[in-house]
């Protein structure tokens, strides 16, 4: 099936779609403040009329391209193009400031290429396995999967888990608005017909990640000086060979963080960076132009893309906000992600593997031949670009259902997201709540019907027990008293082991 998938995409049109998607993605990624979520959401509306595989190929290519393109502004402007590239800023920009901007971009290209390829391999290997495991999930397991996703996302995103969980609950609540799934009863619609269909995902995402960014950029525009490119931008694969341990370790960390729902690509980048620094013999150079650090950040960042796609395909739970939009696009094109995908469309999983591989080749192509021309977009003033982006955002919000109401949803969510972000709330748990809200609702109610009102099966079934333990343990770890208890226990254990060794 995998060979068939690769052969199926080796056509001129597929190559053109992959290159076009990557090109648009790199352009969007280069521009600080514009996210992969917005890029994929806008392209979803643009590709509505295309065949499913062509549309998803463009979207995946743009996803990969955006995160790769974000490294450019991180290196040249010290502003991450996307949140996922924040870990590349320190070392990338430091290299640029000492005249090695081209080298930094070359390292970003090679790290991105290797990281994505590693992730593609994991995507091919683990998605069918996870999907087969998920076939044994029932209502009880799906309830805990949704709860686990919100708790993990809220814990790992941002500085304050309490705010993360709260915004996740808000997302879950917003998903309840409209006709509920069991009896078609209208909830929280206040007699407004437009709300019967609920709050659509794509307009809400465009509002949270598009309009909010437009407001942020225009309300306080910061125009930074662009560092000039003086040296060669070609990838140095010698450096990949020299830092092969970093590449493999960061690739694995990126994929593993990608499997966690709603965590985002920036976690893969930061954790890879932290791990590289922890084991490096040249730790003091991190943050000051470390090749190892930049390689780790970019590899971890890019390998998390296939990592996020794995739970999206296998479980129907998005690993990140961009993969949530990707999932929405798949549903629009008649493909239902989740455990049944292995039964209804098994070939699609391998098609996605082939698409991601094509996207990886595309970013290598642009990394080899088109670095300098693509950087021209960084010279466009924000006050010129952001109004154009907002026009595209309104089209994106409108086009999926041809309703002006969706545009108003985008406006409302965008304004709310703008002010919430200033108060320290991250939008990733909100997005995850929006996606998982219906699943949580139906699973809980079905589970209670099956158990005749008993909550025991929610805690005694083996997979449920595992999810419940991890969910509660994660929440308790942020309670200061519990955290102190665990630390004391670990310290005792360490000293006990130390005494035994003596």
């Amino acid at each position, binding site marked *: 099936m995998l060979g068939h998938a690769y052969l199926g995409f080796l056509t001129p049109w597929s190559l053109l779609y992959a290159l076009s998607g990557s090109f648009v993605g790199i352009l969007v990624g280069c521009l600080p403040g514009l996210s992969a979520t917005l890029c994929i959401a806008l392209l979803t509306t643009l590709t509505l009329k295309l065949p499913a595989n062509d549309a998803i190929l463009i979207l995946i290519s743009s996803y990969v391209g955006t995160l790769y393109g974000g490294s450019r502004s991180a290196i040249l402007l010290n502003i991450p193009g996307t949140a996922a590239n924040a870990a590349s800023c320190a070392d990338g920009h430091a290299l640029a400031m000492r005249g090695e901007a081209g080298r930094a971009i070359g390292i970003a290209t090679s790290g991105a290429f290797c990281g994505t390829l590693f992730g593609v391999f994991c995507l091919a290997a683990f998605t069918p396995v996870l999907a087969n495991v998920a076939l044994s999930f029932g209502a009880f397991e799906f309830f805990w999967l949704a709860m686990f996703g919100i708790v993990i996302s809220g814990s790992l995103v941002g500085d*304050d888990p309490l705010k993360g969980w709260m915004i996740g609950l808000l997302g879950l*609540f917003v998903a309840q608005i409209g006709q509920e799934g069991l009896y078609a009863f209208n909830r929280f619609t206040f007699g407004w017909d437009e709300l019967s269909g609920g709050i659509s995902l794509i307009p809400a995402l465009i509002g949270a990640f598009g309009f909010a960014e437009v407001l942020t950029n225009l309300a306080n525009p910061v125009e930074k000086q662009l560092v000039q490119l003086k040296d060669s931008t070609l990838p140095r694969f010698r450096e990949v060979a020299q830092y092969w341990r970093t590449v493999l370790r960061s690739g694995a960390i990126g994929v593993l963080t990608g499997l966690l729902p709603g965590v985002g690509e920036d976690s893969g980048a930061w954790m890879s960076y932290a791990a590289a620094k922890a084991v490096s013999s040249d730790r003091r150079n991190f943050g000051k132009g470390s090749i190892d650090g930049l390689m780790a950040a970019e590899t971890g960042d890019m390998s998390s893309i296939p990592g996020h796609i794995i739970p999206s395909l296998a479980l129907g739970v998005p690993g990140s906000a961009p993969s949530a939009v990707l999932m929405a696009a798949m549903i629009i094109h008649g493909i239902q992600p989740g455990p049944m995908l292995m039964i209804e469309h098994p070939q699609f999983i391998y098609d996605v593997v082939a698409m991601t591989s094509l996207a990886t080749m595309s970013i290598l192509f642009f990394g080899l031949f088109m670095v300098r021309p693509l950087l021209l977009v960084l010279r466009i003033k924000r006050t010129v670009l952001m109004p154009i982006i907002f*026009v595209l955002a309104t089209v994106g919000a409108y086009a999926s259902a041809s309703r002006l109401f969706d545009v108003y949803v985008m406006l409302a969510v965008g304004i709310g997201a703008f002010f919430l972000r200033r108060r320290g709330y991250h939008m990733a748990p909100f997005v995850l709540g929006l996606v998982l809200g219906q699943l949580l609702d139906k699973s809980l109610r079905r589970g209670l019907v099956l158990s005749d009102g008993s909550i025991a099966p929610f805690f005694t079934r083996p997979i449920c027990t595992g999810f419940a333990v991890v969910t509660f343990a994660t929440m308790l770890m942020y309670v200061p008293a519990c955290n102190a208890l665990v630390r004391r226990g670990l310290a005792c254990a360490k000293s006990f082991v130390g005494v035994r060794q003596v």
Partner: protein
Amino acid sequence: MTPDEPTAHPEPGSDPRSDMVGGLAWMALGIVILVMSWQMDRLESQDINPYTIPGLVPGLLGCGMILLSGLMLVRGARRGGFSAHAIASPRLDWRRLGLVLTLCLGFAGVLLGRVPFWLAAWLFVTGSILVLRWRDMADSRLRGIVTAIAIGLCTGAAVSVLFERLFLVRLP
């Protein structure tokens, strides 16, 4: 920010005034959700299973919000509550924000659906560039105005052609 870079100020989560204000707001929302869920029709006339009433999950979410907001209030109160010194948020130019909101809401809330899309986009993009870059264009106003009009026109035309003609996507 690198993982172990020392922060110049406490993390946002530990701002006591923010916790108190946020906690009260979330508590109010949680209570409203809980009350509305409690009052929601239980569809007894349809003889549904009582464990599947529509208000169950929203009610539980409301309870969750109340619980978390209570924790937020306790955290804020323990660190000084409203009398604590507020940690400054990044400075916001309210006047500029108001201008931007007016422009965006004017385009998306007023013009869209009432005038052809290309015209609405042209007016919005041109108007936004002129308003937001007026001071920067002091040296060459006429050139700036002509450029803004040209960019707006190109945007309106390009987006209309691209979406409607090439990709067959309906525009408002």
